[in-house]
């Protein structure tokens, strides 16, 4: 990347919202059946960041969550595990312990999640704490207030600093697109985060509505595509919040497949931030397997 020049973030990348929505509508018409459906459902399961981010989280809750991550459905041990569990920094060591012996990553939110209203130093300290506790991935939030007032260099520098504090841990930058409101802003924030060195861009905290939407995700995927073309570097994508149904998950995968291609169809480059999606995927996988829908009561709720 050393040869590429930084774009001027004051320039707005034109985006036509109606066109974006039309493209999503057309992609949603892809009919995913038979083999491709089973493959897609399992792929989606392997891409989940199984998440609990509540004030009432306790070690007991986190351990349960990790158990579910290790073995989504005991009757089908051959199913893939989820990609990661996502918790608050003070729960990282608990999660790490509970996931010992697996490939499942521990992701921690940091930087005064979800508002990001803290000093840079406090954010760096929190990041370092989470990494020291053993977090493999850090999900940071951007300073939306600074962004919206046009202080793009602040946002850029903050992301760079957190990335440095991450050390070997992966960084995901949460844009909180529900607060950025326009698709032009989503594109701009994506570009800032990618040029500042993030590994992933992520839509939302899940605390603001709307959270992840397909039009927003498509715009971010297109930003990733342009970044790849311009710099040669791949960046990952994580829509988070509000994705509850297997059908939606498949629609997101179609977006990825037809925008970025096969290379991104992997937990290394695409994640779902979700909690209740896991069970719906399991229900659908079981339906494909047995031909009948099972009651939701047969699936553990954690």
């Amino acid at each position, binding site marked *: 990347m050393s040869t590429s020049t930084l774009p001027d973030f004051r320039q707005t990348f034109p985006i036509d919202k109606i066109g974006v929505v039309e493209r999503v509508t057309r992609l949603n018409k*892809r009919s995913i059946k*038979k083999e491709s459906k089973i493959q897609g459902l399992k792929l989606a399961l392997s891409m989940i960041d199984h998440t609990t981010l509540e004030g009432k989280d306790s070690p007991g809750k986190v351990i349960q969550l990790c158990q579910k991550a290790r073995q989504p459905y005991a009757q089908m041990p051959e199913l893939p595990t989820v990609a990661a569990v996502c918790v608050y920094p003070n729960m990282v060591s608990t999660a790490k312990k509970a996931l010992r012996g697996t490939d499942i990553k521990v992701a921690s939110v940091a930087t005064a999640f979800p508002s990001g209203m803290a000093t840079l130093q406090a954010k760096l300290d929190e990041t370092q704490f989470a990494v020291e506790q053993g977090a493999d991935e850090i999900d940071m939030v951007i300073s939306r207030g600074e962004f919206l007032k046009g202080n793009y260099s602040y946002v850029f520098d903050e992301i760079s600093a957190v990335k440095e504090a991450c050390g070997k841990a992966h960084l995901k930058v949460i844009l909180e697109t529900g607060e950025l409101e326009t698709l032009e802003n989503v594109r701009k924030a994506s570009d800032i985060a990618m040029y500042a060195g993030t590994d992933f861009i992520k839509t939302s905290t899940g605390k603001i509505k709307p959270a992840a939407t397909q039009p927003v995700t498509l715009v971010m995927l297109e930003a990733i595509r342009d970044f790849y073309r311009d710099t040669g570097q791949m960046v990952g994508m994580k829509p988070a919040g509000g994705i509850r149904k297997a059908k939606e998950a498949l629609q997101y995968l179609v977006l990825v497949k037809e925008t970025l291609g096969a*290379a991104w169809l992997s937990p290394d480059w695409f994640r779902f931030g979700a909690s209740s999606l896991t069970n719906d995927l399991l229900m659908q996988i079981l339906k494909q397997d047995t031909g009948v829908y099972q009651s939701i009561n047969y699936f553990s709720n954690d």
Partner: protein
Amino acid sequence: MSEQQEETPIEEKTNGSPKPTSPNSDLKLDFASFWEYSSAPESSDHVEIPDRYDHFIDGKFTSPVKGRYMKSINPASEDVLTEFAEGTSEDVDKAVKAARKAYEKTWSKLSARERGKYIFRLARMIQERSRELAITETLDGGKPIRESRDVDVPLSAAYFFYYAGWADKLDYAFPGRKVKPVGVCGQIIPWNFPLLMLSWKIAPALAAGNTVVLKPAESTPVTALKFAEICRDAGLPDGVVNIVTGAGQTGAEIVNHPDVDKIAFTGSTEVGKIIQKSLAGTDKKFTLELGGKGPNIVFEDAPIDQTVEGIINAIFFNQGHVCCAGSRLLVQEGISERLVNKLKDRMETLIVGDPLDKNTDIGAINSKAQYDKINQYLEIGVNEGAAMYQSSCNIPERGFFCRPTIFTDVSQSNRIVQEEIFGPVLTIQTFRTPDEAVEKANNTPYGLAGGVWTDKGSKIFNAGQKVRSGVVWSNTYNKFDPTSPFGGYKESGIGREGGLHGLYPYVTLS
């Protein structure tokens, strides 16, 4: 990229491990190697298409006087779909007489409100049989089910609904004038949107109180004959709608029949000229909707990813068999390379194949003749020195299929830029200033439709007003609505269809 590193295969990585550098050095995106969509064909079992169709004259299916039949084939499989009657002057005469009788005895005597009720009923019955009609359209014409299901059939119903509403409000359509129907209308429609073109023709004609004799194209007659069944089942008075099938000669018989009061034709400019010649000196009214070579102008400030999608819709919709297709792309020089690269990526994701598969984007070329014509133009383009690029998709061995194609390095003087190809073939030229774009856009004998792409509203109005086309879309393409008039300038035609303007050719005012 500053450092050259070895390629790292993606498969070897585990969740969340440090990311490798780009998987290939030329930064090509790979859309095919993983997670292919399984086939998802729409079932056609429940659609009944008899082995043989007769003319629909005076409310009944009637064998052709000369007893000759032609074959309609499914262009995706080259199998015969059905046989249909070949109309001769005797058949046309019978149909015109039936239409005249119905006009004088029943249809013009009916109150406008009753007339409206019949047209509303036709609209509803198109909706009720929408699945069957969509599948039939796809089997007969080769267009993807995604389009016949989502565009052709719903829009056809919408045109009937729209014009049904006008039936009892004609006095308000032309305030202060006395409105009378024209009489018997002869209508000849093309093969690219068989049912939709039928609805563009029949709905306004009936709403204004006329009766019709309609001839569908010889490669796609089946949905018109299904519509005949709908007319019969709807209890439409006998002779109000007559369908006579056949080829060009049958069409000529309709055009030249002395008792036809108005001709509506959609098709090629070549045939349009012949029709206009044969109508010269008669008092028949006529509307012609002919060919096009739509300019699609992209300024450098356009929303580029949505523009790429618009270009795709402009030229690859319905295999490019669209008279208003955006077949000439005019791109401002500064973004040309970036845009073309994005367009090539997008073309790679287009699925060409079985038209009945719900995931198919581009179906079969409508007929062998058209398939040959397109291939001939591809050859002409290459011989003219243009750079041809086709997507790398697989195409079925049987049937008439053509890969989506773009030509760069073309000039205004090239035949592929000047002549209508009517296939999935796009030519790409660049321009430097808005005036140059408009000049190139207008330097054509056609003037049916065009597009302007920019983020700036004033540029849209400026360029849009200067482009001599009946329709100019901005930041979108190939959008149709029953309330909006459609038609061409210059050799793209005379008269308008759709909207209030579309009623005008079907009435006489005093």
